[in-house]
């Protein structure tokens, strides 16, 4: 009897083990198999940022655009010139009026047709939801002329209207799909959202009825991995096929590994340090100058950027026609500015005024690893010059900038993502802009920016943009540090995933995986 039970047990045990092996074998096979069948190719990408929600007309519009599911009326090509996208063509009737011909036969992911009426609804929603679209477009009215014809009238002449219609805040979506609780938003892109888990992943599958060239991949999964090294390791372990924003020091590791390809390209991004003009310590211009002088830009480019970047002298990279601002006079010393404001070096070598030490809080965040290292270098330089800085690392920098107490903060902006200076200058410097994170307010600069918004001639616009930057470099609401290069890495089998100067066009229908 006892023997029998024993034998039964052994049989069951073996059955369980065999079943388990079979099961793991199956899953492994099915996963691998899917990568090989042509119609069913998938790719997994690692991005640093996760959208908080899927609303295309809020603060997450960039992330939605990055997912390859959404489109705008106009697109920017690699030379940053506006080209047709959902709008087939456009013409300007007079200073304030534009007529747009929409692409025909476009459907949203829920099957509804995209026509002039739905585009109008979508644009009106983006104007209502966010300040960005309002600032960019300055629209007075939108009128449906026919099924595929739309008239846009701006409140005042807006020279950059076409370029600004490429901004993600103007994503065209089926408004009805955004208002219901159920289901995912319906856009018009080559991929449609299949599944989204905040801070984890977004799965997008091929949209069968896409109006353009259908996507080569049947599915793209974006994994949100904020930490640079973790992204790198996910790539090395095979968890992801490609990753963006690879920590620069690790480029060498990937270059040695023949499975991967490292792609670098100049970006339109600027790493900078923000000053909080609401903070009593740094609202003084001379003190900001003292801090600015302490930033060792050349050393930063040579060491931690390993040459993958250039020293920054203003908000826009020098490759742009409006990016060559004259360098400031560097002859002054920190001591001169500090003494002018009545600060004195105490026995410990720290600046002191009426018993108060010059101590500042500097924020930084992990998603761009080089910024934290930069913060440490700046902290060290500042200390040598008699300024104490306490570094605080925060997970969500934009939340911290809005809610916490801070003096300095590391930051990074894609400053010329519409190929035009107007957008960045408007959102970053207009006194009433919600994105004016430094709380900088200057009525004369507001006037200059308004003037830029109304100027049509491009040479004059560039001239105005340079003039504005000179004011910025004098008032110094930020210190611009470096123009970094974009660093991507992908398995060699991945094709078409390249660093476009516009960061949110990374995913497109022509990405492919060829094993």
């Amino acid at each position, binding site marked *: 009897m006892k023997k029998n039970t024993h034998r039964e047990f052994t049989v069951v045990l073996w059955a369980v083990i065999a079943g388990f092996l079979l099961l793991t074998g199956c899953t492994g096979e099915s996963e691998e198999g899917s990568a090989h069948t042509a119609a069913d190719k998938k790719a997994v990408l690692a991005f640093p940022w996760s959208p908080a929600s899927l609303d295309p007309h809020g603060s997450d519009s960039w992330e939605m655009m990055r997912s390859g599911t959404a489109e705008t009326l106009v697109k920017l090509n690699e030379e940053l010139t506006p080209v047709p996208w959902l709008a087939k063509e456009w013409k300007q009737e007079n200073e304030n009026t534009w007529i747009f011909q929409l692409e025909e036969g476009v459907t949203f992911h829920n099957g509804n047709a995209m026509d002039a009426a739905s585009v109008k609804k979508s644009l009106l929603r983006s104007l209502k939801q966010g300040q960005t679209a309002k600032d960019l477009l300055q629209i007075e009215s939108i009128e449906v002329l026919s099924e595929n014809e739309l008239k846009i009238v701006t409140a005042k002449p807006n020279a950059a209207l076409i370029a600004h219609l490429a901004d993600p805040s103007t994503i065209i979506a089926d408004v009805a799909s955004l208002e219901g609780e159920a289901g995912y938003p319906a856009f018009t892109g080559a991929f449609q959202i299949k599944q989204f888990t905040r801070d984890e992943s977004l799965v997008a599958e091929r949209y069968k009825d896409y109006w353009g060239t259908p996507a080569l991949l049947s599915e793209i999964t974006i994994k949100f991995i904020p930490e640079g*090294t973790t992204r790198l390791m996910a790539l090395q372990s095979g968890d992801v096929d490609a990753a963006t924003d690879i920590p620069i020091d690790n480029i060498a590791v990937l270059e040695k590994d023949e499975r991967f390809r490292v792609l670098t390209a100049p970006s339109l991004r600027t790493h900078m340090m923000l000053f909080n003009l609401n903070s009593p310590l740094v609202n003084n211009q001379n003190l900001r100058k003292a801090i600015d002088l302490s930033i060792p830009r050349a050393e930063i480019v040579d060491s931690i950027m390993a040459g993958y970047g250039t020293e920054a002298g203003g908000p826009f990279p020098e490759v742009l026609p409006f990016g060559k601002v004259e360098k400031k006079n560097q002859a002054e010393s920190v001591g001169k500015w500090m003494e002018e404001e009545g600060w004195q070096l105490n026995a410990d070598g720290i600046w002191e005024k009426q018993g108060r030490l010059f101590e500042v809080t500097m924020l930084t965040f992990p998603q761009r690893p080089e910024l934290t290292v930069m913060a*440490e270098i700046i902290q060290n330089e500042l200390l040598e010059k008699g300024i104490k800085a306490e570094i605080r690392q925060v997970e969500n920098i934009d939340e911290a900038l809005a809610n916490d107490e801070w003096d300095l903060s590391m930051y990074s902006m894609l400053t010329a993502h519409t190929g035009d200076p107007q957008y960045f200058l408007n959102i970053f410097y207009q006194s009433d802009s919600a994105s004016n994170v430094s709380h900088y307010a200057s009525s004369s600069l507001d006037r200059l920016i308004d003037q830029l918004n109304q100027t049509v001639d491009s040479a004059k616009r560039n001239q105005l943009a340079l003039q504005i930057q000179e004011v910025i470099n004098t008032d110094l609401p930020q210190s611009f540090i470096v123009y970094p290069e974009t660093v991507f890495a992908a398995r060699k089998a991945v094709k078409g995933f390249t660093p476009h100067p516009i960061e949110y066009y990374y995913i497109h229908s022509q990405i492919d995986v060829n094993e």
Partner: protein
Amino acid sequence: MKKVPYSVDAGLIGGAGLLIFICLAGVLAPWLAPHDPLAMDLSNRLSSPGWTYPFGTDHLGRCILSRIIYGIRISAVFAVLVMICTFLISLPVGLLTGYLRGRTDHLFMRFIDGMLAIPDIVLTIAIVGLLGPGFVNMAIAIILVRWANYVRFIRSLVLKVRKEDYILSARMSGNSHLRIMRRYILPEIFSPLAVFGALDTGKIVLAMAGLSFLGLGTQPPTPEWGIMLHDAAGYFQIAPHVMVFPGLAIMFFVFGCQLVSGRFSRRHTAAVKEV
């Protein structure tokens, strides 16, 4: 054959020696460290161990050996301070609940049961998350999480002692409760507590390193072992030594604490194990 007590104990001597060596190095840091632990040299980043920099340099060109030596002052001293603070909270609570029993004891124990149901590290991270990252907040979080363990342990020791005949006789001779706790119970439970404390000091160093590694503890440029590991994480593929040496420092300190407490506990009849 019973082992002769108080024989020369290699483990104890080794452990104590290791700890004394580490503490001395911390005290003598300014004389022992070959470089300024904060001095950066960006032209000499991530260099391998050599004559000038025995343990190499980190991602900002700082001397790793000097940072480890100065790190003793933070990691080890901090661990001991946290320990003392935890005892200051848990000793009175443990003594009172164990000695007086009754409703207070019941209430405290259920509360502590609830706390212990949540994993240590999760609770610590949650508390630091609420308070915000930083050295002091990390200390507060570790104390808030660990005190419950200590109360449990102290109470169990007190429960055992309070039934002893000499406590009853002391009570009968008219000693006050306070005096009994101070004169008779505290000395009796002191040595197992010391063992527990020594063992836990190592664990605090580990907890602290863990939090700093997650970016929640010490903030740059403080030379602390955990934050050194955290900083090194981005470079371990190109310069593994940046991570290895701080890791070894933590290992040796914890090992020293383990050896001392392990040998100590065998000397005493009270079984010391983690509660």
